[in-house]
């Protein structure tokens, strides 16, 4: 097979498959995008390399393997804009830094508005983005048609009244991002322990001294949880109660097609989001299945609703074929914003609640979570995201900007 961009160029070593040591400075639970990025930045920014990332399945086989690969930072609130745009700026340098091609394509994202109130909300977000230094434009329907000619803006039950446009947003190939991060981590001495499920913790008072796994304990000076939808299964064992609800989130892809869809398009009202991957398939997603679930599968009416939306917005998609649907388990918070920070256990830290929007934050989440683990204190960017906000009431409500029905 030639190195055509569909797979990375040979030759390469991505990771070893070591047996775990008895102890590590840091154990990260979950080798998804965030777990990997955290390990990477612990090594790069903080000089910590005595790290094990423990993964119950195959590396980056959770939501990192299942997301719809959208990267953007056009969130409403100051804290979110800062957090996500920091991530986007890291994305812009990441493939060079990792020396790994993962097809990061800044092809722009359109967030459509279909009602007058959506227009107000969208413009509010775009104005705020500008003032926060995040690129944002407001487009009229005619301007939208120039950006995305195949988008049906007027012949709709809910016509498109306008859209925000973030040019620096785009997509990347999720698996390749994971492998690029893993390779660098492995080079720096990080151990990936796959097929090993963390089931609980070894504690000593208000300290965690290690993780319990399905085949023995691993000692840890510090533990960082990056277990997404399975977080509460772990935190519950310590009596640490987090406001997370785990839901199936489905996504789907078509067969590979000649390029036809030039950017990312998201609509809340005609609910679907879609892009065309580097390899050529259309990738689509929408809202969660509203029941709680860990089965990593969802119901068909959710698929039907989003495909009805997709075909309305993109009549050219009518005869593209649904090739595959799948689902992950997403941990949703009451304000559609993540929880990143310390826990009541002094050396246990949690990064979770990213819900339907974790992929776009991958390097940024890793950066701030690494800082939190390394220093014991949140980074300024994740300071607002501690679990205390649910006590104080200082929620960071991003349901609108999340652009995914909950």
């Amino acid at each position: 097979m030639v190195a055509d961009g569909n797979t990375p160029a040979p030759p390469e070593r991505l990771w070893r498959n070591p047996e775990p040591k008895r102890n590590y400075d840091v154990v990260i639970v979950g080798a998804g995008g965030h777990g990997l990025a955290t390990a990477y930045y612990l090594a790069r920014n903080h000089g910590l390399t005595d790290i094990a990332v423990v993964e119950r399945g195959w590396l980056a086989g959770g939501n990192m393997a299942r997301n719809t690969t959208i990267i953007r930072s056009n969130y409403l609130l100051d804290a979110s804009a800062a957090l996500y745009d920091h991530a986007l700026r890291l994305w812009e340098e990441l493939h060079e830094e990792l020396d790994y091609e993962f097809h990061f394509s800044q092809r722009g994202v359109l967030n459509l508005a279909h009602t007058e109130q959506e227009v107000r909300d969208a413009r509010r977000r775009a104005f705020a983005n500008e003032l926060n230094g995040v690129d944002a434009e407001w487009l009229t329907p005619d301007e939208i048609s120039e950006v995305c000619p195949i988008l049906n803006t007027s012949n709709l039950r809910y016509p498109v009244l306008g859209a925000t446009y973030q040019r620096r947003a785009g997509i990347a190939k999720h698996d390749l991002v994971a492998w690029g991060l893993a390779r660098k981590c492995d080079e720096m001495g990080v151990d990936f322990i796959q097929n090993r499920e963390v089931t609980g913790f070894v504690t000593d008072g208000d300290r965690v001294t290690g993780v319990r796994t399905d085949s023995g304990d691993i000692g840890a000076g510090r533990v960082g949880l990056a277990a997404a939808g399975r977080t509460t299964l772990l935190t519950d064992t310590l009596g640490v109660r987090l406001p997370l609800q785990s839901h199936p989130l489905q996504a789907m892809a078509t067969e590979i097609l000649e390029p036809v869809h030039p950017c990312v398009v998201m609509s809340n009202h005609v609910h679907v989001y879609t892009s065309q991957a580097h390899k050529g398939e259309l990738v689509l997603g929408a809202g969660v299945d509203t029941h709680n679930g860990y089965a990593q599968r969802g119901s068909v009416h959710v698929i039907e609703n989003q495909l009805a939306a997709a075909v309305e917005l993109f009549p050219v998609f009518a005869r593209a074929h649904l090739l595959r649907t799948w689902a992950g388990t997403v941990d949703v918070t009451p304000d559609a914003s993540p929880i990143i920070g310390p826990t009541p256990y002094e050396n246990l830290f949690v990064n979770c609640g990213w819900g339907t929007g974790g992929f776009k934050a991958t390097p940024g989440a890793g950066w701030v979570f690494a800082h939190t683990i390394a220093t014991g204190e949140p980074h300024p960017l994740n300071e607002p995201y501690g679990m205390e906000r649910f006590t104080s009431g200082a929620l960071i409500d991003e349901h609108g900007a999340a652009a995914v029905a909950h």
Partner: protein
Amino acid sequence: MTSPSNPNRVNASVRAGRIDRTRTLNATVDGRPVHGRPGDTLASAMLAQGDIEVAPSIQLGRPRGVLSADCTEPNALVQLLDGACPEPMLPTTEIELREGLRAETLSGVGWLSQQRDTAGYDKKFVHTDVVVVGAGPSGIAASLAAARGGARVILVDQHRELGGMLLDGRADIAGHPATEWIGRAARELAENEQVRVLTRSAALGYYDHNYLLVAESRTDHMAVPPPSTSRQRLWHVRAKQVVLATGAHERPVVFADNDRPGVMLASAVRSYLNRYAVLPGREAVVFTTSDSAYSTALDLLGAGARVPAIVDTRPEPSARLVEQVRAAGAHVVTSAAVVATTGQHRISGVRVRGLDDDGSLTGWSSEFSCDLLAVSGGWNPAVQLFAQCGGAVRWDPVVAGFVPRTTGGRSAKVVGSARGTYDLAGCLAQGFAAGAEAATLSGFRTAPPPVPQVDGDRQGSRPRPVWLVPDESRPPERCTEHFVDLQRDATVADMYRATETGMRSVQHVKRYTTISTGLDQGKGSGVNAVGVLAEILAANSPGEVGTTTFRPPYTPVPLALFAGRTRGELYDPVRTTPMHHLHVEAGAVFEDVGQWKRARYYPRGAEDMHAAVLRECAAARTGVAVQDVSTLGRIEIVGPDAPVFLDRIYTNGFAKLAVGKARYGMMCGADGMVLDDGVSMRLAEDRYLMSTTTGGAAKVLDWLEEWLQTEWPDLDVYCTSVTEQWAAVAVVGPDSRTVVGRLAPDLDVSADSFGFMRFHETSLTGGIPARISRVSFSGELAFEVNVPRWYGEALWEATMTAGSDLGITPYGTETMHVLRAEKGFVIVGQDTDGTVTPVDLGMDWAVSKQKDFIGKRSLSRPDLVREDRKQLVGLLPTDTTTLLPEGSHLVEPDVSRQPPVPMLGHVTSSYHSAALERTFALGLISRGQQRFGDVVCVPVDGRDVEVEITSPVFYDPEGVRRDGPAQG
């Protein structure tokens, strides 16, 4: 009969096939003619005329030919050019030939056309006792058994006729050709009213609780589809019992240059011969790992082809079969494998080497010329549907395939080759048993029918899969022409590269090499990949490696099928008021508010919205204007505990509201944030009529019910939505009293009699019963007239008549927005966003200190008593003509504009005011209530607009206009 144009079509005397030889169908592929028969697929028609080569491969541009006769086809992909709209990536093996078909071959990538797909796609939702997927022998047997027991049965099969693999072979059932048994079964099922047979229908997905999705193709096989028939139909089937008789797929073998055109699956060769009367080649070598391919050899020989060799990986194939083929004229080579092929655009020969016990090549070699290589790497039970819903599979070393771990009980029953049973008698027995059991479990007790005598297709010796035939000269990690996934051009060398990275999981290897990501989703390539990986990792068996995940849909289907009729006007219901057409006639421009269409403004002549709204506002404040407010939510709350209930729901008091009076009510979520608001009336001691916002009506009713049912079931209260029961108009302005007086001559509408926030019931002229209240969202003297819905038109017309000499002016939502904003009245969802409390809005007066209410506890949380919270204010641009964009943000004048610029808040509502003769806005600003008089900035389009923070009440702050002009 064979003819120059169809050299590979076999005489009817040799093979009838399932085709109609009396008619010819003409198609075009890549501009070249293809002639075939009704009953042909595009693949069989092309093979009949000797066309085996299709488009070259996707990455490497290697010549490729059709490999299979089913949905696992990796190479023969086309773009259909005719039909309502071009369609990409369809295997020729699955396209029924029709007159006028036009296609172009594709190298693994299709394209989308700008042409609109005008075909119709329908859905059906059905319940059944038993659903049987697959109408091969097992599935037919199951359906017969269940149907005879009296159960409702749905039988689903991908093909146009029943029979499954029986039509690929030549078995006998009860002493007659299997086709006769199939025909009798088909008639029996067709005559049973409790049975529905869906052909050309692929079961796409198996979802929780026995829910199956089936895609029925209705017109794709027709040259001219009937105009009103949907092209495809998506069946949603909820079954009590599920029987999966989904069959098995033959897999190819992985050896050097195994992708040459002319390499075909042995079962496909057999299928082409027996179903379509097509001989894909004249000189065929058969390369097999199990017994099944011997039938192919026998059939080839019987049809007049030569079989130079049968190459069998096993040292001891079934003696009976060896004897049969030798007697028919074929040479059998055992413990051997094909190691290379020759030929450019078609195979011309194979090279064969001996295999020893551990799979290495021995010194023995031979060569055979051929124009067809029929390969059988073994069989993969079609476990996809079973596994989609959590069914686990295990490796069965005897059948050399992944089979369901459980085959019945709580999960679906899997029968026949789908569970690794390949002998016909066994398939029938399992089918009958499963069908009878399914009927019994559905409540129709019945026993399985007896299994008839069968001949043919008997398994003998065990298979010997060889996952990776060694290359003669290269080590396996450099086997760049050993194809594992033909559609993806993925090879053994690619798999080695994957494992060299450190990858061990089949999931990683799949993603790294893209094996199994093509149209077949692993049906043709997956198990071979697992087998090769097991070799690479020196695993004990493919079972140790495991499979990747099976996901719906089983086979690709157009997105439009899932969209169905949810298109265009049917995408979402349109809710209209009873007066809607009168607004249309009046030239109103409409706005979507939820599902409702509401008039936004009524332009006269060449007016734009700006001009129309100024005129409508002026009419409302100086004369009289009327708005259709029928969309507002209305909920009747009835019961002795209604007062207590409302006191708990609303932030302000309602229990002590006097009968006959109305009050503005504010409600919050448990988190203290504004949820909805509206004016609610007390109709009787135990009866209130609550108003909600238009968009919030359903949400509020759900909210009320949730509290009543789950927290306070002890309260004796009933809630009823009456939004649709009422039509209503707001009559607004100094002259409104006159108009209402004319509408309701029996009612004393004088200022003394009809106080603010009171309501009266009366009859309008013509006997229309009405409830009239004095409520005002504009701050003007105003009345709301409510009538039973079916009087809505009459009410509107009567109102327009009653005010015609006063210049009564219809107004829409835009004017309504302006009028209320001039008075500082908020719109929930526009001036609030789920993070705003009543206190933030300056509505402390509505927050009861006496009683508890939902949300009260939250109001004292640290973040909700922060002194820098955003608070509702008015905003006046220094330049009275500058309109602040809604959503724009306010910043301090003296802070740097270098991002991030600290924002004080944002503009929520912004308008031109006829009454104020200037622009104004509402916003939420940090510490806003302490900052009246401060001047701040709104950055817009690169410049700063100066703005003064004011009270949000701009017009008539004393509220004197509310009671109208003084009456003499």
